[in-house]
């Protein structure tokens, strides 16, 4: 089993819902303006913009960027305490209580996907009510990043187990894939030929970010076709 994601840039309109859904689902702290201006905004799912050419031939590409969940994760390689590691289903996971906050993984990640809790995350008393109880809030001083909403996998797995059946594709979808209005984000098991990602990942339009680094990302992008 190898969980992976396909993001079809031809379908994606860059609306930013994946970013918002991710923040809400995973209780990612909202960093106040002053801190934010320093570059401490935490986005597990980010939106990259690439400008190509000049007007009138200008093309703007918007690329939603989750964690790539590399098969050879440069971050897990350097972690001194196994606070980030690749699990048996291919998800590069974080163990927050184990993280010592050395930020080596952040320095090593070529995709710059990791965020650090520079301060203790704070919410207003009311708004903290809206936190997702399935996901822990990270303490100060640890690194965090996209987990492919692994808490949903656990939940779905247990459900499937209690019903003595296999996990279905639609049961485990991360918040970004679930929320994408255009259906550009598809999630599933890359090794399961019944899952859509399995076919899409072999599309001639398929490409990966910084492919030449040999990190083998499990997030596949489908290039624009026009």
């Amino acid at each position, binding site marked *: 089993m190898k969980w992976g994601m396909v993001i079809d840039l031809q379908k994606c*309109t860059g609306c*930013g819902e994946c970013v918002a859904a991710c923040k809400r*689902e995973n209780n990612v702290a*909202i960093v106040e303006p002053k801190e934010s201006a320093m570059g401490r905004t935490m986005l597990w799912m980010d939106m990259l913009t690439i400008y190509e050419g000049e007007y009138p031939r200008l093309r703007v590409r918007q690329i939603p960027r989750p964690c790539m969940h590399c098969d050879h994760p440069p971050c897990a390689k350097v972690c001194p305490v196994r606070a980030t590691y690749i699990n048996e289903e291919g998800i590069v996971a974080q163990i927050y209580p184990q993280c010592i906050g050395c930020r080596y993984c952040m320095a090593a990640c070529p995709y710059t996907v990791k965020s650090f809790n520079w301060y203790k995350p704070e919410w207003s008393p009311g708004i903290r009510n809206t936190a997702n109880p399935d996901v822990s809030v990270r303490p100060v001083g640890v690194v965090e990043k996209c987990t492919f909403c692994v808490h949903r996998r656990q939940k779905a797995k247990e459900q499937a187990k209690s019903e003595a059946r296999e996990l279905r594709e639609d049961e485990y979808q991360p918040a970004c894939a679930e929320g994408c209005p255009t259906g550009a984000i598809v999630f599933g098991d890359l090794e399961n030929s019944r899952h859509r990602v399995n076919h899409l990942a072999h599309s001639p339009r398929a490409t990966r970010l910084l492919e030449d680094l040999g990190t083998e990302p499990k997030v596949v992008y489908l290039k624009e076709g026009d």
Partner: protein
Amino acid sequence: MKISRRDFLHLLGVTGALAGGISQVWAIPDKWRDKLRSGPRIETWKVSTCGQCPAGCGIRIRLIDDIPVRILGNPIAPVNKGFTCPMGESGLELLYHPDRIDQPLRRKGKKGESSWEPISWDEATKQITRMLQGLVKEKQTGRLGFLMGDRNTLLTQFAGIFTARSGSSNFFPWRTPGINELGFWQATGEFPPFSFDLTRTDYLITFGTNLLEEPPSPVYFNRIYGKLKESRMQSGLKMVHVDARMSQAGKNATEWVQTRPGSMGALALGMAYVIIRDKNLDQDFINLHTRDFRKGNGDFLDLVTRDYSPERASEVTGVPAETIIRLARAFGSAKAPLALSGGTSDTSETALFTQWAVASLNALTGSLSAKGLWREPVPLPWGSSSVSTFSPRSTSFSLKPRNAWDTDLPASWIGEQLPNFVSAGKIADLKILMIAQANPVYQASNQKMWKDWLGRIPLVVQLATLLDDTSPYADLVLPATTYLEQWDLTLPVPNLPFSQLGLQQPVAPPLTGARPLGDVLLQLGKGLGANLFPESDVKSYGDYVQVRMKQIFASGKGTPYFEEVSLAFLEELRKRGWQVYSYPAFSDFRRLLQEKGGWWDPGEYPEVDWKRGRAFVFPTVPRLAKLLEERSVLKPGEETQKRNKLPHLWLEENVKKPETPDSFILAPFTTLMNMNGDGASQPLLQELFGLYPRLYWNTWAEMNPKRAKGLSIEDGDLIRVSSKKGSVTLPVKIVPTVSPEILSVPFGQGHTESGKYAKNVGTNPITIIDPRVDPLSGRSSWHSTHVRVEKIKK
């Protein structure tokens, strides 16, 4: 019992999972989640309809032990099919906002000062009722006004009824016009505008229309754009976006055409010139269903051929003549071309002229007769309701039935100009003004006028969830509930090709002290001695919603939302007299509505019927001149200039160009994270406000790289942007997505109130706008301000 290590670990895992977490990583809820941790952690779901914008998206709320923790899309809601936008996501932040008002507040200091004393609801209602009764006694009920931000719900109509029953016609709805609203209203008298089915077009050209970030429904159109983008690889569909700035709509189009702000009408007419010259016309449609294409001196043909050759249009718009010709040929030869106007073309001094010209393109090329492309605005099950209109002749407001207003304009267009009319003595000053869901002191470009006017009105009552920028000018602020705590029905979304009524129901108990706006109005009506609904037993706004629901039920049309099945199958069912759901009694129907989240009518997709005596009227020289004369109240003081010039050329003079090397045209724009400035109260939206330029929680100025180079400004530099009205300091973002002539600044930040997350964050570009008005529609212009830019040393 002996527990082995393995058992223990297993047990740990199970309890961890039960506690909502997984492994050690997840099972540690923060200490403030005590309640949830100790509670039984029962997960429930409720459905409702989003109220953050007028799009009417169905939402599904996840509750843990009755505390809402997440808003997701309702998968069976026809508009959004299970998806939301960032604004929808952050609704709970509004519900639980730490700064929500929980009791009525009376202003302590002078107007404009935000110091308050809390009073009781009784006291507050008494004060208002006393004033209202005073008006009744003096027979001056006409001096009550109601400014209502129209979120496309029943509540707006309800407030209109309240105003009317209180004896006043001064109901001022405040909203962004729909796509094509100005143009089609002028050309066909149709209001609300025709709907369109984007999936049927093979050539889409959007004149300033940013369907992806602005009303009517970003989620719907993002969904459709995704489909179009996918299918265009095969179908070759062209999507052209015309605007000075490449908004999200431009980024997702196949081509972006830079124009000067306000000049898009000239571009459309330049295209019309080429289409006419090439004889790429839909002659049948023109002959049968249009007027004034050819009528004699100054007719449309004359107007276009004389003044809009591609070369001349190029001069006005800045678009090369070859591009105009190319666009016109492609548009003219498409089978189902579709030209849309809205967004930035609504907020210029040529707003109505532009939209009319764009609408004319559709009439010329057979777009309007293309099969299935244009749809009738679907009527409500209880028949159409009346619309608040403004008569420029008598400068008065009235509620009139749809499409029967003669020379009146929709009142929502001219909402911003109210203080101007009052100070010009055109309308009598008000004694009481009620404000709800609108923030004119922040949103209007003539903020100074608003502040003065609100300062003069003896009693300004605001109903709000948070103190906003307008509150300091109110005498009383009454705490209202949010859309997540009250009953309401969202009305069909303009421009969308189907009828839908979304049910809003309370998903959380209302904040103690806050009351639903509808209930407050009912109570005030009772205090006046005027029963607002003599015909039925309406004790609360919830009852009123139920009355409407009964009418839907009685109409026998449509069905509660249902899981997606093919429409053909549904049609089959319908023919046999079957329904997806069975609801013999109203109570069943109501229960279904509450379970499913709303009602829709998938069967009715009527195409626009031109045989019903409708006619498309082209803009002509005499007609433009007559309209300018008739509506001179909208923009007084420029009569002499008008007489000396042909009307369209006079209008065109309002297209601005930068004058000096450091001058730009200020071009505010709106984003999906904020829309009309309301989103600023929510931290998630504040952070994501600058998602694309990565300037979170901030306002920035977008500048073209060429101009930046000329001014030796680098990305991230601070600049001072000054107009005649004042100056603001902004960081620069150098992007190729704006034309060299404009300086784009996002609208939505720079609140002086609106809660702790909005207060004093960023800058409001509207404050330095030169408040100018479109003389044909009364719309405020956002694109007429020259600004000078200078770099500030860091």
